[in-house]
């Protein structure tokens, strides 16, 4: 398939922007100026000013002599790049590959896009009409090469669409400046009387190289399609991406859901064919007012189950603000992983931690409520109760050591030990009585002590002497004394857990 390119030239990019900000400027000639070698020099002029003869590069004093009522505004140096970047992102609605062409242009690779608009003519007309509606004067041309479309957009006189393979003929009547050359080379060409491309295209290449250097030949080849020209897109197209342009802007939740469903169907179909599954997905909604709304989801294990991914998105959809409408939906899967094709099971089985149903359930919980609410624990090699288990990082992680069962541990543990009042015989007998939450417990049976030392390399503090006790009602508690009975140091009794 032949490549097709569109080059857009914003002739009054900066002044158009100023006019948009201050509509009163639309009817007066004005220029933007910046200091250069101690003088103010015009860097951009609007249509009215240019018609009266004020042009870029002129000194402000000269311009004022031509138009005494000329308005002069300060130029912003980074403005044109910022504007172009924003416009380029918006142009992704026309084609996925958009590149910047500073200082005042954009390059679009439109191969295979135009039929969606019903033809090349309608495609270009839509671009121009939309830009005009949003206040930008632009010229756009379409050709097989970037060089040719660039030349036609700026210097072309009649048609703006160059048919397939016709770029050489179209370029013949254009001036050498149309080739994107350095100004020195253009001047030299003019000096030699070469005012049209037709005059030097037939010349021998060695002669041209000798007089004007390699750049001229390179530009010439690029314009004529004899040399490939690399394009740096603003957004690198992702391999797993689906687009859905809408004829009418979408404003309803149902509309968004239908769009998402269609995109997911297409994307999951592709993923299935390639044996991949989504780990993260991103839904971008391009709004009519050129803002982009986006929601993202993540999964615990790669999935290409349309219904499941849709459910995950469902929780996030209310967060999308359609405003005046969404005209383009893009679904991306930035992170995909291989999916092991699951064999269809004839009987129901519990797949343990690798169960797909479980992973999907946890995705839903994480999507609705948050990832930090789900915990799984693995043993950690510490005796200190609070450190004896650690959270697992994912579902597949296996315990590195065995769970300890040699010492009794309470089924319910207080997150923070609570102080209690105790009557206990010294030195290390279990307590006889203790008071917890204003209730007196008489201890009938007890086990212990079990001394657990602080791990000094992790935390400073006193050791704990744990006792497992049972009161007269049959309730079982885990109590400990922090530290030795020592008059100089403080010791305190705590309750830390409840046995079953």
């Amino acid at each position: 398939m032949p490549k097709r390119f569109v080059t857009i030239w914003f002739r009054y990019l900066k002044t158009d922007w100023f006019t948009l900000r201050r509509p009163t400027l639309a009817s007066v000639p004005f220029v933007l100026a910046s200091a250069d070698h101690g003088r103010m020099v015009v860097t951009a002029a609007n249509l009215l000013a240019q018609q009266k003869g004020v042009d870029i590069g002129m000194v402000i004093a000269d311009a004022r002599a031509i138009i005494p009522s000329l308005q002069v505004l300060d130029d912003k140096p980074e403005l044109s790049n910022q504007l172009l970047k924003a416009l380029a992102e918006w142009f992704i609605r026309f084609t996925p590959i958009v590149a910047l062409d500073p200082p005042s242009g954009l390059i679009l690779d439109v191969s295979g896009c135009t039929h969606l608009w019903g033809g090349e003519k309608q495609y270009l007309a839509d671009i121009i009409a939309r830009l005009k509606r949003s206040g930008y004067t632009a010229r756009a041309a379409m050709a097989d090469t970037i060089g040719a479309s660039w030349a036609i957009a700026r210097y072309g006189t009649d048609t703006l669409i160059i048919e397939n393979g016709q770029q050489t003929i179209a370029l013949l009547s254009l001036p050498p400046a149309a080739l994107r050359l350095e100004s020195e080379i253009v001047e030299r060409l003019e000096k030699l009387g070469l005012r049209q491309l037709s005059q030097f295209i037939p010349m021998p290449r060695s002669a041209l190289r000798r007089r004007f250097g390699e750049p001229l030949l390179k530009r010439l080849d690029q314009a004529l399609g004899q040399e490939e020209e690399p394009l740096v897109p603003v957004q690198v197209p992702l391999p797993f991406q689906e687009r859905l342009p809408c004829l009418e802007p979408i404003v309803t939740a149902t509309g968004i859901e239908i769009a998402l469903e269609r995109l997911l169907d297409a994307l999951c179909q592709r993923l299935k064919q390639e044996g991949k599954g989504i780990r993260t997905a991103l839904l971008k909604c391009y709004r009519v007012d050129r803002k982009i709304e986006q929601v993202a989801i993540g999964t615990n294990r790669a999935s290409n189950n349309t219904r499941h991914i849709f459910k995950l998105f469902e929780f996030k959809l209310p967060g999308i603000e359609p405003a005046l409408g969404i005209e383009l939906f893009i679904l991306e899967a930035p992170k995909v992983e291989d999916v092991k094709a699951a064999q269809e099971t004839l009987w129901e089985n519990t797949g343990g931690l690798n169960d797909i149903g479980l992973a999907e359930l946890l995705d839903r919980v994480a999507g609705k409520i948050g990832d930090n609410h789900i915990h799984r624990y693995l043993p950690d090699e510490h005796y200190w109760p609070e450190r004896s288990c650690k959270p697992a990082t994912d579902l597949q992680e296996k315990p590195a050591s065995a769970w300890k069962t040699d010492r009794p541990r309470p089924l319910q543990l207080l997150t923070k030990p609570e102080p209690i009042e105790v009557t206990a015989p010294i030195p290390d007998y279990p307590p006889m009585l203790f008071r917890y939450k204003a209730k007196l417990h008489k201890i009938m049976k007890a086990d212990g002590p079990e001394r657990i030392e602080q791990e000094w390399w992790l935390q400073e503090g006193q050791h704990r002497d744990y006792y497992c006790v049972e009161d007269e009602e049959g309730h079982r508690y885990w109590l400990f004394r922090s530290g030795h009975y020592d008059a100089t140091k403080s010791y305190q009794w705590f309750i830390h857990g409840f046995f079953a």
Partner: protein
Amino acid sequence: MTAPKSAIIAQLQKDILPLQGFKKNRNSTILDLNLGPVKNAFPNAQFPIGAVHEFCYTGAEDAAATSGFVSGVLASLMRTGGVSIWISADRMIFPPALQSFGIAPDKIIFIDLQKESDIEWAMEEALKCNGLAAVVGEMPELSFTASRRLQLAVEQSQVTGFILRRNPRSLSTTACVTRWKITSIPTILADDMPGVGFPCWKVELLKVRNGKPGTWQIEFAAGKFRHLPPAIILDVQEPQKKTG
């Protein structure tokens, strides 16, 4: 040839059950909990799995006793390598202790939620997931409608649900198959040995659909439930010697 009377009666009881609206479990696996005479309380003398059980208790001590009993049942359900989900608002379960009840603590996924509505939602979603062995949910309040939803979910998925209700405000009718109350009782040690024995509970089955409620004393020793005949309990009612 006449069959013994007891066999005829057992057969008749089995015939009556479907008339009372008892639906036979599609799941053919029979769970042997070693509960002794307790199993006679259940229809067909089988602990109902693929159903929702309700446990009521007050206080932290009974919370521990109840979660102990539930852990014991859970261990049998998870024996085939299944995974369980434990949903709670302020979780106190200490995972390493589950190992002594025969559960691999890393096979339990804890979901900690704050809002009651979230817990209810997560509980229902989890019960619908047929890859799980069981789901435990700590939710104090359970309306009849909510319990119906949970019951419908488990009828589809055949997952067993346990609802732990701490200090419930009202104990109205629910669609759960059973309602239990577990309280701790003093442990029993042979020959006046010092120390604390195996976990011991008074298990009250307050309600059971198509079955007979009752009260028993159960001990959990060496990874198994053990029914304590009333005689043993009488023996140890006298005051214990102080240890130490």
